[in-house]
């Protein structure tokens, strides 16, 4: 699910190179980011056969190519997915209704305003008014400062240092070693005979 304002122009070559045997979609209005309240990529959501969320937004690295940067191993998450596939609703990784409701929160007023500012910026960018999109992207970033999707996407559409006075590397350095994208702690898989 490519969250790319540039659409197939930006995401297409990666999908083609991956030769996916799964469904790969392009989301140039970042509809999924907005509807699910996501703040970074990669984000994973587990949805059961009835269309019900059983694990909401969380870090979803499916290999270790960014390990030197994120300090995260992908193996525990992949193991959890395999456990869910094998054990379905009995998987220890499937969250209870009360756990889900504790993690899922209503959208804040600031996030709602950030979403429309970002959406307007995307629209202006897509009709060729990239410079005039910048104030709207900046406002979205101000309203939802922890949203890396809204920062990194906007920075990638032009010259981040020139247009926003910063860039991804500088912003990560400001974290002073704090996790850039912190995963939820996964339970130990049950031992099965």
């Amino acid at each position: 699910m490519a969250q790319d304002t540039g659409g197939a122009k930006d995401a297409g070559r990666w999908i083609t190179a991956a030769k996916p045997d799964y469904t790969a979609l392009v989301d140039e209005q970042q509809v999924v980011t907005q509807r699910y309240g996501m703040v970074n990529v990669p984000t994973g959501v587990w949805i059961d056969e009835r269309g019900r969320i059983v694990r909401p937004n969380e870090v979803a690295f499916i290999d270790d190519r960014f390990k030197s940067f994120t300090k995260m191993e992908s193996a525990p998450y992949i193991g959890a997915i395999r456990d869910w596939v094998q054990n379905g609703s009995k998987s220890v990784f499937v969250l209870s209704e009360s756990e889900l409701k504790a993690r899922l929160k209503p959208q804040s007023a600031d996030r709602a305003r950030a979403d429309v500012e970002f959406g307007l910026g995307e629209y202006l960018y897509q009709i060729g008014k990239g410079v005039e999109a910048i104030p709207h992207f900046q406002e979205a970033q101000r309203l939802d400062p922890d949203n890396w999707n809204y920062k990194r996407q906007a920075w990638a559409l032009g010259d981040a240092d020139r247009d926003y006075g910063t860039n991804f590397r500088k912003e990560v350095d400001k974290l002073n070693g704090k996790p850039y994208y912190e995963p939820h702690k996964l339970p130990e898989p049950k031992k099965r005979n």
Partner: protein
Amino acid sequence: MKHFLILTILITGAATYAAAQTTRTLVYDGKATEVSVSAVAADHLWITTSDLTRATRFKIKPQGVCRDELCFPLPKNRKADFITRRGTIDWFNLAEFARMIKQPFVADQKNGVWYFGPLAAEQNGYLASLEAPNFTLPDLNGKLHSLTDFRGKKVLLVTWASW
């Protein structure tokens, strides 16, 4: 001289009408629609009731402003804030309506674009049901896929980006 004066008044009248009635781009449900607007003011968006339905699928009904099963009654003492008739045309103040139903929106006055986000009830509705919000998006070949197409299967939804 008299004819010249009348012609001048006619031209001025036409110019005033043109300035009062112009177009804007309305982005609603992610779809852009050109609409006629009247009485342009920074915080109001008066559009024709036919454009309202064309751009948003909302219709004015006796019970309120409705789309599918959803209806919002208009406060009787403030009806003029939402609906007005000028000449033969009925106009609807979409910005005031959005404020009333707490729908987020933002305008770029310079480019004449108004962008409306989802209704709060639509955005947060899944928190009670835990049903994953549906979406319909294209693959690289332009074929559309909806989340609901995958009912009966487990879905691992993973987002990524080229940036």
